[in-house]
């Protein structure tokens, strides 16, 4: 009962009817005790009272950091010598405490002749509407703005959805991530809605805002296009955005649960741009490698030739067919036959010794003669 009475008194205060020269006007504010960023609807009705003159009006709110405003509607009933104008504004207070809404009103008085002339003439002879302007001082309207609960980011009735198509990517490949916030209230805009925790790279753009101001507040549809990337698998912490609904006077959270992203290992070589990215500068030692290669090949060839030569000599000496034949001779006659068959004068001495032993009275050591013959090979 007490609360109802208070609201009734506030409404009466907000309904102010004032009488000025030549015209009357009245302001209406739907809420004189709004929360910060809560929508307040202001209406102004001007009624011409002096029917002898032609009256025109220009009305607007003064710019101020304490509030934002937007004209929703202007309705003019332009009957002859009886101007009636209805203005409707959407106002968002931005500061707590008492703030004043200040106005500018310009009254323009003209005559019927001037109005008539202003519609005559041709393209090269235009006559403007001649008016006598008078600034009308309107008293400011005071709002008692209430503070928001601590940590409130958005004010209004919003819902949050997000879109995350892939959870797996290659290193540094962007992972598209989109958050949509829709609802009625002060436009839910933030520089970044991503949490500061996490070492991944964040790519953000300005949010895409679609908002329509109505007499019930601003209808918003805001999307936050983002992308994430990292070289390793990572986890995006949960996003919690605190919002406050002034109609229910309750806080709530718009949230995105924690998301894990798997980054596949990719060989580094395949990541390099072999066409456009020049190789990092390094000293070219390939000539030395080539030179060493040639030296090794040359050395190997030279040693092979030497080894071949040594082997050949060794084989010739040890495996000379006559060498073996002489070794295999078991008696003097056989050795004599073998040496005779050679037709080699080097063995003349050995042959003579063998003959002297076989057909004369000479005495020889067969092994010694063999050795002598083998030494001649």
């Amino acid at each position, binding site marked *: 009962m007490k609360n109802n009475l208070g609201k009734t008194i506030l409404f009466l205060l907000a309904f102010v009817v004032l009488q000025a020269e030549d015209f009357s006007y009245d302001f209406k504010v739907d809420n004189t005790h709004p929360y910060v960023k809560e929508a307040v609807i202001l209406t102004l009705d001007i009624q011409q009272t002096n029917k002898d003159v032609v009256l025109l009006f220009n009305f607007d709110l003064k710019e101020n950091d304490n509030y934002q405003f937007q004209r929703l509607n202007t309705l003019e009933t332009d009957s002859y010598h009886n101007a009636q104008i209805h203005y409707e504004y959407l106002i968002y207070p931005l500061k707590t405490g008492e703030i004043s809404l200040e106005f500018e009103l310009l009254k323009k008085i003209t005559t019927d002749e001037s109005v008539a002339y202003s519609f005559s003439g041709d393209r090269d002879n235009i006559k403007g509407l001649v008016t006598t302007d008078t600034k009308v001082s309107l008293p400011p309207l005071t709002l008692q703005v209430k503070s928001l609960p601590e940590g409130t980011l958005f004010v209004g009735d919003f819902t949050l959805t997000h879109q995350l198509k892939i959870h797996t990517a290659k290193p540094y490949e962007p992972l598209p991530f989109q958050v949509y916030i829709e609802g009625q209230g002060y436009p839910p805009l933030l520089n970044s809605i991503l949490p500061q925790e996490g070492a991944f790279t964040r790519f953000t753009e300005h949010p895409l805002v679609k908002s329509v101001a109505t007499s019930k507040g601003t209808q918003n549809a805001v999307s936050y296009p983002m992308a994430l990337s990292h070289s390793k698998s990572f986890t995006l912490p949960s996003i919690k955005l605190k919002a406050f609904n002034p109609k229910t006077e309750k806080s709530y959270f718009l949230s995105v649960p924690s998301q894990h992203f798997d980054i596949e290992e990719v060989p580094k070589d395949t990541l390099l741009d072999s066409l456009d990215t020049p190789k990092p500068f390094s000293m070219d030692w390939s000539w030395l490698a080539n030179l060493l290669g040639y030296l090794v090949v040359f050395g190997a060839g030279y040693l092979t030739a030497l080894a071949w030569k040594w082997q050949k000599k060794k084989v010739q000496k040890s495996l000379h067919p006559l060498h073996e034949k002489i070794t295999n001779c078991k008696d003097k006659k056989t050795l*004599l036959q073998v040496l*005779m068959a050679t*037709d080699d*004068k080097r063995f003349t001495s050995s*042959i003579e010794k*063998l003959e002297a032993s076989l057909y004369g009275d000479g005495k020889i050591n067969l092994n010694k003669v063999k050795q002598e013959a083998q030494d001649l090979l």
Partner: protein
Amino acid sequence: MNTKITLLKKELAKAVVGQKDMIEGLLVGLLCDGHILVEGVPGLAKTTTINALSKALGLDSKRIQFTPDLLPSDIIGAQIYNPQDHSFSIKKGPLFTHLLLADEINRAPAKVQSALLEVMQERQVTIAEETFKLETPFLVMATQNPIEQEGVYALPEAQLDRFMMKLVVKHNSQEDELDIMRKAATKGFGEVEAVLTKEDLHTLQKELYTVHIDEELELYIVQLIGATRDPNAFDLESISSCIMFGASPRASIDLYKAAKAHAFLEGKTFVSPADIGAVIHNVLRHRIVLSYEARAKGMRTDEVISTIVETLPIP
């Protein structure tokens, strides 16, 4: 060693350095009335040796350079018509000599070769209708160049058989070549003088008959020659496919005579198996005809002979 042989060798050494095998081969040929075929590259003192031998023995020597356009009459001689008295006279060719160097015999056409080889065998020359006996000794030393084989007329086997020995003359040793070089530069070769006569040579040939050869060695010679004809009969299956034709009976005769001459030159009074072994390659290497298979394998007749000598047991 026979003093005459020693003297002869010493005299030859004045003009010829090294080449002992060739000198020994020529002496064997002279003692046995045989002819020698020499194969070797040019410049190995073949002409020098013949000239030196002729001077040392007081014999005539001539040299014929065989060429493709040579005619038989160029070597044996011809009947010449004399227009002044309308008569024919005999012009003897260069064959009428004691020692003949037939240089590059395989460059002459077959008819010239045949004419020479007939003379070598018959030791007489018929010009027109008149026959002339050649003086003894008569030795032909024919040469062949093993390098140049283009434009040559290879001697047929039957004609090669007329040569008692085929010597393969090789280059001198480095020491000998150094000696030759120095002597040639300072004209240091001595003048060869006649140290023996034709009669002395006949005496030596007669002495050769006295050199004894055992029956077993005679049989050994026959077996060696037989092994070239029928290797399988002597357990020489390994070379049976290598021989197309074996040595002729002339080979037996020449091996017999050459072995005796070798023993004689060595100062021995008997022939030993080593004497046979010393000459068998020279006597047989031009008499054995290798099969196509053996030639394709790159075999030489010397290898066949060595195999035979190695295999056949010596007495």
